[in-house]
């Protein structure tokens, strides 16, 4: 049986570290056609070198004027899009402040990365995703969520409220685009041994944390199920 990701066109934001990098690596190893986005040119070039075939795109999803340049490189280089993984996330300042101590500008920046970025990029790429669904390939948008989206953890005000907004947008998108065959997933990868987790909880014991490779693998299994369900429905 061929791998369900073989030849699939997948775009990942935040693709040079943590979960995003683990997703890039597994997808490339499974024969997917991958475009990944990150802010730092040197890191993008390094990940592209280490993962031959992956298309590296320099851009910042929190910046409105970067969205269309990112979108056109994704659909230009892949010739379309089957799966979008909105993974790039901003934790906000650390150590994590209480919500009432959070500067408005910091909250806005967290929302720019975690809510408006995925909103804008998904909107710009919706045509390509819907085309994939129409052609029977299926189409999935995976928005990386968090248990902080549903649980009220003190200190996680900016991040948690932004992930709650993204989670709810995912649910509404999923309702609105079900008839087109575009499936939206909002999944919590769990507490992983990543740079972001280290920034949030510096004294956590890495041995107690999930490997990002494990979460990446679980996400791809969920996407594979989503693709099969939708390609079945759309026929």
């Amino acid at each position, binding site marked *: 049986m061929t791998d369900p990701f073989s030849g699939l066109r997948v775009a990942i934001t935040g693709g040079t570290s943590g979960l995003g990098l683990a997703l890039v690596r597994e997808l490339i190893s499974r024969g997917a056609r991958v475009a990944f986005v990150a802010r730092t040119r040197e890191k993008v070039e390094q990940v592209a070198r280490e993962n031959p075939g992956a*298309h*590296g*795109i*320099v851009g910042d999803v929190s910046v409105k004027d970067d969205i*269309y*340049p*990112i979108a*056109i*490189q994704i*659909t*230009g*280089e*892949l*010739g*379309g*899009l089957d799966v979008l993984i909105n993974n790039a996330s901003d934790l906000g300042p650390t150590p994590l402040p209480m919500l009432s101590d959070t500067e408005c500008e910091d909250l806005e920046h967290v929302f720019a990365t975690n809510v408006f970025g995925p909103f804008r990029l998904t909107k*710009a790429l*919706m*045509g*390509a995703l*819907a*085309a994939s669904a*129409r*052609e*029977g390939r299926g189409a999935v948008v995976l928005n990386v969520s968090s248990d902080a989206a549903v649980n009220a953890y003190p200190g996680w005000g900016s991040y948690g409220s932004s992930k709650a907004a993204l989670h709810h947008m995912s649910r509404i998108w999923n309702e*609105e*685009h079900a*008839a*087109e065959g575009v499936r939206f997933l909002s999944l919590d990868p769990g507490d992983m041994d990543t740079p972001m987790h280290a920034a949030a909880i510096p004294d956590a014991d890495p041995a107690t944390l999930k490997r990002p490779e494990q979460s990446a693998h679980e996400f791809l299994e969920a996407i594979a199920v989503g693709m099969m369900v939708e390609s079945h429905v759309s026929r």
Partner: protein
Amino acid sequence: MLAANSAVQRPTDAKLLVVDSQRNLIHVPRTAFVEFLRPNDLVIANDAATLPASLDGVHQQTGKTIEVRLAGRRSLNPMDVKSFSAIVFGEGDYHLRTEDRPQPPTLQPGDALVLGPLHATVEAQLGHPRLVSLLFDGAPDQIWAGLASHGKPIQYSHMQTSLELWDVWTRIAGPPVAFEPPSASFILDWRVLSDIREQQATFATITHAAGISSTGDEDLDHLLPFDEPYHIPAVTVQAVELTRRRGGRVIAVGTTVVRALEAAATDDGHLHPGDGVAKGKIGPATRLRVVDAILSGTHEPGTSHYELLRAFLEDSALERATSELIAHDYKTHEFGDSVLIL
């Protein structure tokens, strides 16, 4: 007709002139388009996204400022982006009508063009001093990155403000292969697609590299439209066949859809899925083999788009419709009003 000069894809007061099969002329708000669909009809649109095909730069041999407008490509292959045909303009920007723009310096094979981060070489003239084939330096990903950061959508002097990609990408925009927007599809949004389903009609797409609509040069305009590569998905071919069997109509959204579908049709009306290149012009002598009806922008006599409409409607009816558009202040060009010829 008045030029629509504001970049709103779906103005609330947009108008639609419907020419029904009895040649009655009916004026409705454009949002009423879906009400003219019947169960089993098939609406086909062009899902090409628009390239930032306008590139400012310098002609290295003379140091002169130029604008390059990418105008054509051999294929839709994502990695086949080193070679483009292009029209070159002298200095100035969209505030000047293309007719009034200064001529570019004389372009010779081998000349180097520096277009922001992109470097290109003139390969050859293509039958006109301003129409050339270009070869970009670098790997495909570098070319895409250069286009993304430096290119702008092709601009129009009738617009009040400069156009950004979000102004010209349709809601259904997928692969970025069009040089100018397939603007008939501005009518479509996700709500309209849902309404089409509710009418028990079907929606499908083709991808067609819609080319430049006008160059401001009479000799060049005679060469329009250039050859345009397209892709027709197998599901779209299946949808056409099903529509035929069920007695529905194939309704093309825009002239590029007609061009692609008719180019891919055999003489007996069978449609081939896959990639092809649309050549030649569609006009009054064309026998349409696939498309039954067209939803289009309004077009003025003398343009290649108007000629294409002549394949759908005899001249007397088309002239009557055009008079009606003028009498009722319909707007023309990319962001203008629409006609539906059933």
